[in-house]
């Protein structure tokens, strides 16, 4: 399988401008054969445009698209070995489910489609619905028809444009697993566009986070989460506490930082910005990595951990965990997620606390960026193409 690269998608310098507006800045991207790749970003970040350029529905203003070794940049969509699952499914309303699924096969002149269509409908568990019209099916069923209609053609690459956007939460979870199962089963390259970071992280092997027409960072979900390279990625994927700090000194492979009168330690390997003494960096830590100790017990905290003192401003109990907002001198809204294993009854709003965490969980970012980039990730489930 490693020798077969016919399902590789290679974008070189591909970009799209509409008049003076740049939807996608020239970008280079290689998606290897058989991978589940997600393009993640808020609406309007250029992810759908990128997908449509791969599908041939949008002509790139610059650059080339290769599938395997074939340059498909100038090929019309109907000549590309690529199929798309559209955002609103775009099922043909005048054809029944069977004919919708058979559409691609018939267009390629395949006469005996019955067996293949039935097998495909069984794969998506819609064998019983073959003679119904699309409007007689539920949203989840329509979504599966859209997947079946694309997959039956054995495309080199399957493109999914927010395929789960119109489904409710429970169904969406179910379909995420279903799509992942199908992808593993058929081994086709999937490129998935979504604005839902959880969806991207659950399903994809590799995620590219896009922002304002550029790829901010590319990597495995855990890599992106643990080692964000920009404030946008740090804030867009999950939540990050970002502190502005000054570089004090370096000792071995560690950087010592000054922040709000205290000292913090940051492993040099986890700092994506150049750290020179006296310079500034943004220090980040994820809320679930932090432990919370009441100020009275501060002496029990082991040596060598990063500490910040503060006062609990707010706490909300959400079952498996409790989310605290801590007001500290270095950051007015420090978020801490604590597992509800042994709850300390003294940790209520107003309590003086010490936040502490393993320095290895600290990451450093370039301080020249907007510290709040990518914070607003809550968006309506819009039907507008991003």
């Amino acid at each position: 399988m490693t020798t077969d690269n016919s399902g590789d998608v290679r974008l070189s310098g591909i970009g799209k401008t509409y008049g003076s507006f740049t939807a996608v800045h020239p970008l280079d991207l290689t998606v290897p054969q058989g991978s589940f790749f997600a393009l993640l970003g808020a609406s309007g970040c250029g992810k759908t445009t990128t997908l449509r350029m791969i599908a041939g529905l949008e002509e790139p203003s610059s650059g080339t698209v290769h599938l395997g070794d074939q340059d498909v940049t100038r090929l019309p969509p109907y000549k590309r070995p690529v199929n798309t699952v559209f955002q609103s499914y775009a099922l043909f309303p005048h054809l029944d489910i069977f004919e919708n699924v058979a559409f691609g096969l018939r267009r390629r002149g395949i006469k005996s489609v019955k067996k293949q269509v039935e097998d495909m409908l069984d794969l998506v568990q819609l064998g019983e619905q073959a003679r119904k019209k699309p409007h007689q099916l539920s949203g989840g069923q329509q979504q599966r028809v859209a997947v079946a209609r694309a997959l039956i053609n054995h495309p080199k690459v399957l493109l999914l444009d927010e395929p789960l956007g119109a489904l409710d939460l429970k169904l969406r979870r179910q379909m995420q697993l279903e799509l992942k199962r199908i992808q593993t089963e058929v081994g086709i390259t999937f490129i998935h566009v979504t604005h839902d970071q959880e969806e991207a992280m659950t399903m994809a092997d590799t995620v590219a986070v896009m922002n304002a027409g550029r790829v901010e960072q590319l990597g495995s979900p855990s890599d992106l989460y643990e080692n964000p390279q920009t404030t946008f990625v740090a804030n867009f994927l999950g939540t990050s506490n970002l502190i502005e700090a000054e570089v004090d000194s370096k000792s071995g492979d560690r950087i010592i930082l000054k922040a709000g009168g205290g000292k913090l330690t940051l492993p040099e390997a986890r700092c994506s910005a150049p750290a020179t003494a006296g310079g500034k960096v943004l220090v980040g830590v994820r809320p679930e990595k932090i432990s919370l100790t009441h100020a009275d017990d501060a002496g029990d905290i082991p040596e060598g951990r990063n500490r910040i003192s503060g006062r609990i401003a707010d706490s909300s109990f959400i079952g498996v965990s409790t989310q605290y907002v801590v007001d500290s001198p270095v950051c007015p809204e420090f978020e801490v997620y604590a597992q509800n294993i042994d709850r300390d009854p003294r940790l209520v709003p107003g309590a003086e606390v010490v936040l502490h965490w393993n320095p290895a969980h600290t990451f450093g970012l370039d301080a020249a960026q907007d510290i709040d980039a990518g914070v607003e990730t809550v968006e309506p489930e819009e039907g507008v193409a991003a």
Partner: protein
Amino acid sequence: MAAVTEAPAPPAPATPATKPPRRRGRFTPYWLLLPGILWLLVFFALPMIYQGSTSVQTGSLEQGYKVTWHFATYWDALSTYWPQFLRSVLYAAAATLLCLVLGYPLAYLIAFRAGRWRNLVMILVIAPFFTSFLIRTLAWKTILADNGPVVGALNTLHVLDVTNWLGWTAGDRVLATPLAVVCGLTYNFLPFMILPLYTSLERIDGRLHEAAGDLYATPFTTFRKVTFPLSMPGVVSGTLLTFIPAAGDYVNADLLGSTDTRMVGNVIQTQFLRILDYPTAAALSFILMAAILAMVTFYIRRSGTEDLV
């Protein structure tokens, strides 16, 4: 502090409405329907009944007409005027077909390609309605005049030789031939074809075209397998809106045709207004109506549009 062990009391059950809903409400829909029903009664049902009774009367203008249930009038009218009936259907069908052939590409362009010019083009389609039907038809007399540019051009291109051979034109003239009548009908009813076509084309989701392209359909196949089937409601209503009035039309045949191109509308008009043979005129009207109803029913059944949308 005592723990609250009781859940807050549920809201008191809604007391059943003691007052029955006001009675007037029940009849409101019928009151609203009344003006329309009255209108239909006075201006549609009564005239129909009157025409129906006229068609089975016998007598003469001097001695007055009496209802004698003389159904033979229908048979006489049909056996005398069947050529005009046939001609009406043929001319209307030809005009409808021409309207479809001319109107479909135009409606398609307006719906998918016109962009910001869309409204302007729509106004241009409707613009002829600002002029009287009669004047527009009379204008075609000038356009198709014997020594006008159209006839000249057709002559030079030897198109008239072909149409002469087909029997659509005669001599070196277009005016007073079937071709002129069909042209007039086509021109006058074209907007009735374009508007429903446009409406149904415009409703088609553009992503369906993309989906078809994505599934290996060439642009032509996309049209054949997706766009055209989805525009069928527009095609059916457009052809009906064109065919029905065209089959009963007499103005075009009167102004652009000759005695050889008389349609059933002309016969009815003459019977009513010149010969004053009211029973025959009424019987012809009913035959025309029944024929159109039968054809339309057959057509709608065949096209199966109730399945669409």
